[in-house]
């Protein structure tokens, strides 16, 4: 076995396997944003509503929400109960 062959087998193959594993591990996690408690939350505010039931026509019963910030201090309170939590 020549020096080049020895190097390829005992250094090249492990290095290749290591690089492949590194790509699989790091590449997978980089795409999914992960929440870590205590870190700042730098994302936009999002508000999700349930999908309306399948509709045949273009209109459905749920009214469209108006955009913009809610009016703070409005007299109309709709909240009746609930719970709070911290972590």
């Amino acid at each position: 076995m020549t020096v080049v062959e020895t190097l390829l087998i005992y250094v090249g193959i492990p290095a290749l396997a290591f690089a492949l594993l590194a790509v699989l591990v790091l590449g997978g996690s980089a795409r999914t944003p992960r929440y870590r408690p205590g870190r700042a939350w730098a994302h936009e505010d999002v508000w999700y509503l349930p999908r309306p039931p399948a509709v045949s026509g273009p209109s459905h019963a749920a009214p469209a929400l108006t955009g913009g910030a809610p009016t703070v201090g409005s007299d109309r309170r709709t909240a009746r109960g609930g719970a709070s939590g911290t972590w």
Partner: protein
Amino acid sequence: MVPGEDEDRSGVPAGPFSPKQLARLDEALTLSSRETGVQFSLYVGVLEASPRRMAEDLHAALGATAPDSVLVAVSPGERRLEIVTGQNAAKRLPDRTCALAALSMTASFSGGDLVGGIVNGLRMLADQAGKPSLTPR
């Protein structure tokens, strides 16, 4: 791709969740709302200085559906969770039930599992709310 477009996105990421996580959230929200007749909605973002007040304002912004709605508001930055129930929804989901769901959710959040906590919390709330009654209100 335009180089500037990528730079703009790096400042504020497009959304906090991956497509797979979004699908889980969508399924949880839609199924729990459809099973119970209570409209669940989820807010993830800043809740400002008085989180309860802000969450109640958001609930009021739901408009005509607010009495039948439950708002789950999560502020990961401030580590704060608020569950707000409307007039009709509160009859199905008393405060004690909401507190239990909130406890379960915050336990998951403190472990870093944001989506799992939300999905399990919604499932708990939906299980407690039960099926919609057949008698009209």
